[in-house]
C-alpha cells in the first residue's frame, strides 16, 4: 500500500474517532475543516497525548483544544456556576479523557486491520498549538475540526516496526 493510501486510511480512522467522541461525549457536532490560518496555531490549547504501543507498530494521538472552549465544556460537565472556578487540573482532566477515548477508537480501527496495541495513560499540558511533522518514516494525519465555533486539532501518527 502506498504512503498516500496509508495516510488516507489513518485520516479516515481519526475522523471517525473524532466525530464519535464529540457527538457521543460532548453532544456537540464537529465538522472537519481545511479553513484555518497560521494565527490559529498560536492559540493556547489544552493538549492531550496518548501513546500506542504494539508489537507491529507505535503511534501517538495528539488532541489540542483551545483553553476557553475546554473551560466552557468543563464548567458544564463539573457543574460549576462560574467559569473562573474551573481549575487547570479540570481542563487537563477533560482533554486527557477525550484523547484517551479517541485513542481507544483509533486502536479499535487498527485492531480491525490486524494491528494490536495497548494505550498509555494520557499526558496532559497547556501549550501553544503546534503543527506536527511526521518523524522518520511515520505516517501522520493532522486534521482540524470546527466544534461550536472552536478550532480543534487532532494528529494521529503511526510507525510500523520493521525488523
Amino acid at each position, binding site marked *: 500500500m502506498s504512503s498516500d493510501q496509508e495516510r488516507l486510511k489513518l485520516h479516515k480512522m481519526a475522523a471517525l474517532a473524532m466525530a464519535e467522541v464529540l457527538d457521543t461525549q460532548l453532544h456537540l457536532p464537529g465538522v472537519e475543516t481545511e479553513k484555518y490560518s497560521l494565527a490559529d496555531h498560536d492559540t493556547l490549547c489544552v493538549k492531550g497525548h496518548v501513546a500506542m504501543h504494539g508489537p507491529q507498530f507505535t503511534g501517538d494521538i495528539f488532541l489540542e483544544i483551545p483553553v476557553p472552549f475546554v473551560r466552557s465544556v468543563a464548567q458544564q*460537565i463539573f*457543574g460549576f456556576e462560574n467559569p473562573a472556578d474551573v481549575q487547570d487540573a479540570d481542563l487537563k482532566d477533560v482533554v486527557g479523557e477525550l484523547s484517551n477515548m479517541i485513542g481507544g477508537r483509533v486502536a479499535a480501527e487498527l485492531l480491525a486491520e490486524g494491528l494490536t496495541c495497548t494505550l498509555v495513560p494520557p499526558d496532559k499540558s497547556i501549550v501553544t498549538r503546534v503543527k506536527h511533522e511526521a518523524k522518520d518514516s511515520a505516517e501522520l494525519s493532522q486534521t482540524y475540526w470546527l466544534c461550536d465555533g472552536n478550532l480543534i486539532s487532532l494528529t494521529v501518527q503511526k510507525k510500523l516496526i520493521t525488523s
Partner: protein
Amino acid sequence: MSAKILSVDDSRMVRSVISRLLKPFEVELLEAENGEIGLAIATEKLPNVIILDYNMPVMDGVTMLTKMRENESTKSIPVIMLTADANPQIIATVARLGVKDYITKPFKDADLIAKIGRTVQLVPRPAAPPAA
C-alpha cells in the same frame, strides 16, 4: 432500599458524567480515582455493582478485579467494565474474571444506564413537591 453503585475511574470527567446520569435515580453513588481506593471502598461498602475503568494509575482495573475475586466478601459483586481500551487480551482477561458487561468509551448515556439497569434495579427519585 437504594442501589449502591461504585464508580472507579481516574477521570473526574467520567465520574461526573456517571453521577449526572444516575441523578434521576434512588442510588447511593460511591467514587474512587484508582483501583487501590476502589478496592478499599468495595471491601468496606459492598456495593451492588461496580463500574470499573481499566487503565488507571496506582492500581489498574484488572488488578482490582483480580483482588476482588480472591476475597470472599467481594468476589460476587457484579462489575461492568467501562474503558477506552478494546484490546482483545484485556477483554479475554476480564471475561475470565467474570465481568457482567463491557462498555467501550465513548459511550452513549442510554447504553450505560441500560446496562446498569440490567444489574441493579434503578428506581426513579420521586419528583420534588412544587414550591409553595
